[in-house]
């Protein structure tokens, strides 16, 4: 069985959603994936994901927790590594129903061990980010980091999906969490600010309804699914935001590499070292983007008006959507952090090709970083030996902050450049938002 894992090699927004949508579409038969997938598995992050998918008939949805193949009617599994946000999930389901998905909840199974992100976590997150002022981390304001932090600080007490069906246990855990949030907010907020946290009882009611509506899953259920057909693992965020490998403190609280997906697949008996069983796909645009604060070596404000986003604008918590040149240093580093990739997917080729016509020479590619005062060239970044190691002291961030990109002209053959630089075959090239806008790359491997 050929399972595929889709990971973003940048800071997010590379187009994982659109690649997942394509992998689940009839067009994937061109690379040997003719059978429809049995499910899309989310394996990191939470509701802060924003994966845009546009169907050929014009329907558009920004997938946050539902898998990006939902418009094909493919079920979603939220694995135990997901941070599940039931309130946002309900709103997302309503949006999907409006798009003609008849029973979105019916397509969903949620691992009983997945942690819950609650309005309490979000309130603390926002107060914290507000208190940082100009030193904001670029948080999305949903409480993702707080969810992980609370679970680490209170092992066994953090509310998880399975608790939702045991009202008394859930209510108790929500009350503890609410007390914690109250105390944190008292420290963070200016005096006199009124906090309106929902009661644990009201929240427990909503979560109880959630629990009786969505199907529960566990590792055994995932194993059965993996044996019944092919799975698509849909990553969130990007490798350069990884909790260990990213540019501290501008990171996300999850593993954004293939690691979680490989663990999940490995536990079902799949030989994850065999790329005929588990194909690791790295996704990149033809240019770099970043949403939120943090170092961005190839950022070029002149590109922003030229490469505007139809679905990614400025939002209150993360600020403007930032745009820069393709950064081969970052891409090489991302691939190294992943321990290699089996295939590439490249998106936004149409944008780069159009720009080459209208504004020749504007869009370029960073071959290396250059450090000031003859500090030399940095073609490659060292990979931290493990979690919580040197990178988290901010050395990598300091390096990136002072580096300048060494830019060369944009290539005429993007796929060739990326395959050469990252030593992986190109699976698919995207020249538009829908799956029908994607073509099997001329040098794509057949993966059957």
């Amino acid at each position, binding site marked *: 069985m050929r399972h595929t894992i889709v990971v973003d090699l940048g800071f997010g927004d590379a187009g994982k959603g659109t690649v997942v949508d394509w992998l689940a579409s009839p067009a994937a038969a061109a690379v040997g994936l003719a059978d429809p997938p049995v499910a899309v598995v989310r394996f990191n992050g939470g509701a802060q994901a924003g994966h845009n998918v546009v169907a050929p008939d014009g329907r558009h949805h920004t997938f946050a927790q539902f898998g990006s193949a939902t418009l094909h009617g493919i079920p979603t599994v939220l694995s135990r590594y997901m941070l599940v946000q*039931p309130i946002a999930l309900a709103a997302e389901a309503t949006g999907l129903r409006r798009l003609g998905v008849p029973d979105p909840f019916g397509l969903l199974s949620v691992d009983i061990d997945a942690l819950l992100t609650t309005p309490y976590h979000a309130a603390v997150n926002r107060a914290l980010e507000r208190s940082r002022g100009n030193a904001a981390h670029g948080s999305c304001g949903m409480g993702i980091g707080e969810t992980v932090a609370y679970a680490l600080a209170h092992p066994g007490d953090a509310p998880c999906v399975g608790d939702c069906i045991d009202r008394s246990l859930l*209510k108790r855990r929500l009350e503890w969490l609410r007390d914690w949030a109250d105390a944190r907010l008292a420290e963070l907020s200016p005096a006199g600010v009124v906090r309106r946290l929902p009661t644990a009882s009201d*929240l427990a009611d909503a979560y109880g309804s*959630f629990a009786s509506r969505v199907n529960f899953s566990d590792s055994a259920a995932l194993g059965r699914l993996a044996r019944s057909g092919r799975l698509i693992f849909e990553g969130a965020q990007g490798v350069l935001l990884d909790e260990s490998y990213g540019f501290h403190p501008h990171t996300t609280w999850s593993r954004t590499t293939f690691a979680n997906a490989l663990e999940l697949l490995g536990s079902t008996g799949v030989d994850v070292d065999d790329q005929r069983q588990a194909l690791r796909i790295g996704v990149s645009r033809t240019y770099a983007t970043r949403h939120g604060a943090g170092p961005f070596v190839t950022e070029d404000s002149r590109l922003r008006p030229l490469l505007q986003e139809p679905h990614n604008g400025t939002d209150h918590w993360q600020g403007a959507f930032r745009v820069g040149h393709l950064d081969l240093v970052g891409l090489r580093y991302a691939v190294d952090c992943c321990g290699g990739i089996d295939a590439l997917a490249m998106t936004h080729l149409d944008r780069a090709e159009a720009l080459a016509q209208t504004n020749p020479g504007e869009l370029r590619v960073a071959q290396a970083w250059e450090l000031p005062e003859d500090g030399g060239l940095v073609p490659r970044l060292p990979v931290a030996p493990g979690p919580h190691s040197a990178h988290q002291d901010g050395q990598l961030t300091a390096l990136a902050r002072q580096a300048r990109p060494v830019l060369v002209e944009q290539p005429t053959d993007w796929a060739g450049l990326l395959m050469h630089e990252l030593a992986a075959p190109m699976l698919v090239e995207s020249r538009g938002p829908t799956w029908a806008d994607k073509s099997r790359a001329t040098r794509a491997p057949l993966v059957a």
Partner: protein
Amino acid sequence: MGSGRWSTNIYAAAAAYRARTGADPFDHDHLMRTTRARGTWVAHPTLDPSGVTVREARDSDEHPASLPIAVLFDVTGSMGAVPRALQRKLPQLFGLLQRRGYVEHPQILFGAIGDATCDEVPLQVGQFESDNRMDTQLGNILLEGGGGGQKTESYELAAYFMARHTALDSLTKRGKRGYLFLVGDEMNYPRVYARGSHAPATGWVSAARRGVAEIIGDTLAEDIPIEAIYAEVKRMYDVYFILPGAAFYGGDQQVLGHWRGLLGQNVIELDDLDAVCETIALAVGLGESAIDLDSGLADLADIGSEAGASVGKALATVGANRATVTTSAAPPGLSDPADNSRAIERI
């Protein structure tokens, strides 16, 4: 953005989860009430007992040791707001049993009981489902709210259906009974009537009683006394009666006495409906020896209602009763092979 990433309205979310197709949480009931005259109401096709051969609780690769648990509740007028509260609470039962580790492979069936003398839909019975999503079955239940004024409803029809029209792998393969919970506030009619009668049986002039022939489609040679049908259904299920305090006959001694005569100590008075899932789960947990009463009561106390005390008292006697059952020989009337193997297993 269409994703709802920012939605924080927990009430809207709860309603969205309860809404099965975006309409009323309880679609079938809503449909009947808004589109048909009362006299023409019908059961949802998935719950209509008419012509049903058997409702099955089967083992499978996924659920190798299924444990059938059936919950049928009275939906007549005397129950007041109780049925709607049950419809809201009961979806959590499955997960609760699993989450608390009481039962590994529960298969749950829901149903509703009315009055065969004056209701359009006196019996509704779903399927045994091994899925935490219980909303669909429950949502299809019609809350007719009828019934007569004579303190009797057609519970015996439900007992008959469960005895004659269910097939339990747990029993046939492993000699293990299922659990049947009847939630109501009135008494049985004296017999399971084989056929209907146009004579006013209950004092209601217009009443036209229906029997097994009309409601289920079986041909019985004669009526079955309720003692016999309960003896029969108790060979397949541990049967409990739950009397909610909020119902019209809550606490009624005649009703309690009637049921104790049929079910012994397995009669539970429940003051707080919020605790209905916990109570059922606790009874099953005790029955499965998955929990002792003290830790079960500690769980109940956490709900923060008065229910803990009364339920604890009721279940204490239930537990004690079970202990004597397991150590004594089966009563003469119950000594069929399945029953013997069950008695052995419980020791």
